[in-house]
């Protein structure tokens, strides 16, 4: 009987395009299995099966019609008929036939899907965090602008060495002090505004010079022309740039100063601006011998394009690079500066240097034409710039408006804000400045000032009292 069964199976498989087992292995119903195990016994069950298979084997040889008829035989057309077919091996069931062994397979699939989703979520979160907090993977553009081409090139060089924007600014600023010593340098001060685009955070690093502790207004007023040492404030440049580097630097401090020192050591061409400045001071006699030795060699001013080196500044920058800013504020350099200043009638002391601090503050800001404008807070005149923009935003400045009106608005606005700027000062020494700045930058104040400007013909008298902004012959 077994051989006969095997023969039937193989003969079916020979001409059927479908797998025989796929037809005969319809899932067994639980009741059927129960019947096999219980009352009927295995023998009757096996016989029933064989009868079925024998029936299937007698069907037409056409595979399509065979399949069709097989399914019709196995599946009732409706559940109502099912119960009435006593001879059918199929029986009605009330249980889910897939709830047994198949549930194990479903759990496995759930685990796989869950694992995949968890992995995908983790990867996605990691990628998002990398985009926002990681180093940029695409090295896109950057730009540097300075007053001298050599210093611009140095800034680009620093960026190409993977230095930060602040690194580039530090190197370029030091370079400017070498190429254009008439405008800036380690003996001066300044202000840096840093803006982080991604975080929308801004900081003002104020390293402007401060007045010496022993300065007296009367002495200054009487003798500043004959004692230029009185004009010297405590230099903030070195400490300010170092502070910026501590917060935003990426390349080592020593390397940055080394790059600037190389410019001084290797030499450069005299800029037109420096040559013009030297020419302007040529006839003045109150400059030191050291000054004349460098900028007026043999009594003749340096000309544009002439090649010059500054090994003295190179050595100084190397010293600051290796020794840090303490070399400037509490070392031999300090003594040297104090000595020179005292020689020229000034009052700088060691205490001035040791007490000098860089200020880090938030910038003042306004929204103008859909843009956030940021500028330094007092004692810088950033609030005056903000006020100017607040006033101008309310005017209808377009290319369709008469040019005369626009010139009137701009000129009068500038007059107003220049007058307002003259009332500013260091807020650490006068708390009322902070209050007046808030009032100055308010939109209501801008509206008031705009109405005043608009209601008067041009040229009008100033609306705001102003203070002197010039000292001495300048």
């Amino acid at each position, binding site marked *: 009987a077994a051989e006969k069964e095997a023969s039937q199976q193989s003969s079916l498989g020979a001409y059927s395009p479908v797998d025989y087992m796929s037809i005969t292995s319809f899932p067994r119903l639980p009741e059927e299995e129960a019947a096999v195990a219980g009352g009927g016994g295995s023998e009757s069950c096996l016989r029933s099966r064989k009868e079925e298979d024998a029936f299937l084997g007698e069907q037409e040889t056409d595979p399509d019609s065979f399949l069709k008829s097989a399914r019709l035989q196995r599946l009732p057309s409706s559940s109502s008929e099912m119960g009435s077919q006593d001879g059918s091996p199929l029986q009605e069931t009330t249980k889910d036939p897939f709830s047994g062994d198949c549930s194990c397979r479903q759990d496995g699939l759930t685990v796989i899907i869950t694992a995949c989703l968890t992995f995908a979520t983790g990867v996605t979160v990691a990628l998002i965090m990398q985009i926002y907090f990681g180093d940029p993977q695409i090295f896109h553009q*950057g730009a540097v602008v300075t007053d001298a081409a050599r210093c611009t090139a140095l800034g680009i060089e620093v960026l190409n060495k993977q230095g930060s924007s602040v690194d580039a600014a530090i190197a370029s600023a030091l370079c400017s002090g070498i190429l254009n010593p008439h405008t800036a340098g380690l003996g001066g001060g300044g202000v840096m505004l840093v803006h982080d685009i991604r975080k929308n955070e801004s900081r003002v690093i104020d390293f402007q010079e401060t007045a010496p502790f022993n300065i007296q207004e009367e002495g200054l007023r009487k003798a500043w022309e004959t004692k230029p040492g009185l004009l010297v*404030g405590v230099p903030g440049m070195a400490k300010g740039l170092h502070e910026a580097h501590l917060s935003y630097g990426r390349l080592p401090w020593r390397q940055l100063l080394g790059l600037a020192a190389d410019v001084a050591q290797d030499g450069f061409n005299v800029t037109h601006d420096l040559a013009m400045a030297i020419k302007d001071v040529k006839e003045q006699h109150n400059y030191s011998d050291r000054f004349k030795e460098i900028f007026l060699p043999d009594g003749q001013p340096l000309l544009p394009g002439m090649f010059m080196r500054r090994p003295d500044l190179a050595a100084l920058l190397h010293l600051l690079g290796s020794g840090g800013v303490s070399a400037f504020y509490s070392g031999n350099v300090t003594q040297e500066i104090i000595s020179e200043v005292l020689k020229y009638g000034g009052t700088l002391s060691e205490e001035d240097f040791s007490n000098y601090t860089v200020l880090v503050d938030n910038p003042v800001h306004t929204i103008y034409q859909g843009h956030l404008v940021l500028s330094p807070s007092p004692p810088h005149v950033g609030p005056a710039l903000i006020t100017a923009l607040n006033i101008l935003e309310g005017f209808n400045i377009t290319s369709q408006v008469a040019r005369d009106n626009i010139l009137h608005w701009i000129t009068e606005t500038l007059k107003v804000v220049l007058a307002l700027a003259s009332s500013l000062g260091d807020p650490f020494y006068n708390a009322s400045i902070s209050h007046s700045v808030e009032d100055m930058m308010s939109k209501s104040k801008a509206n008031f000032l705009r109405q005043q400007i608009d209601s008067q013909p041009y040229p009008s008298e100033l609306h705001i009292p102003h203070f002197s902004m010039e000292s001495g012959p300048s």
Partner: protein
Amino acid sequence: ASQVLVMGPDDYIVAVVSSLNRPFGSGIMTPSGILLNSQMLDFSWMNETEDHSSPSLMNSIQPGKRPLSFLLPTVVRPSEGMCGTYLCLGANGGDKALSSITQVLVNVLTYNKNLSESLSLGRLHPQIQSNILEVDSEFPEEDINYFTSIGQQVNKVEVLSLVHGARRTNNFIIGVKDPRSMDAAGATIL
């Protein structure tokens, strides 16, 4: 004043403006080559001025105090979101820096001119103490004629203030120098 403007690939904008006050500062140079500033001139002194204005008590000299400063590093970004125009500006020329930066911002943000054109256009500066209007060499003649026709005294000078800038629109960054400067340079990493 000296300016350094940087817009780097690290998505930072940096503007530095530094100064010695007058050209060569106080003129005092140390043996190691440091030129010392003359920043005390930016304080307001009693009895110093001969015009009708008075010195500002807010800006009087006091030990440890910082003087009033017209160093104006300026940064602009979109007020909402991250897409749009970013600007970085610096200027020299004392109080003229305030006038110049205001006019450049109007050119870029109100007239939507490109940065290069905005920096090259003529600028004006009202002297509030003398009531003279200063204009630079690029200022249009017809505008000068308008001012003179209404009785405004106009003084034409070669350069009022040098304004440099950098601009970023999405990922396109450009550095632009003021065309009035012979020595300045802007460079861009492509």
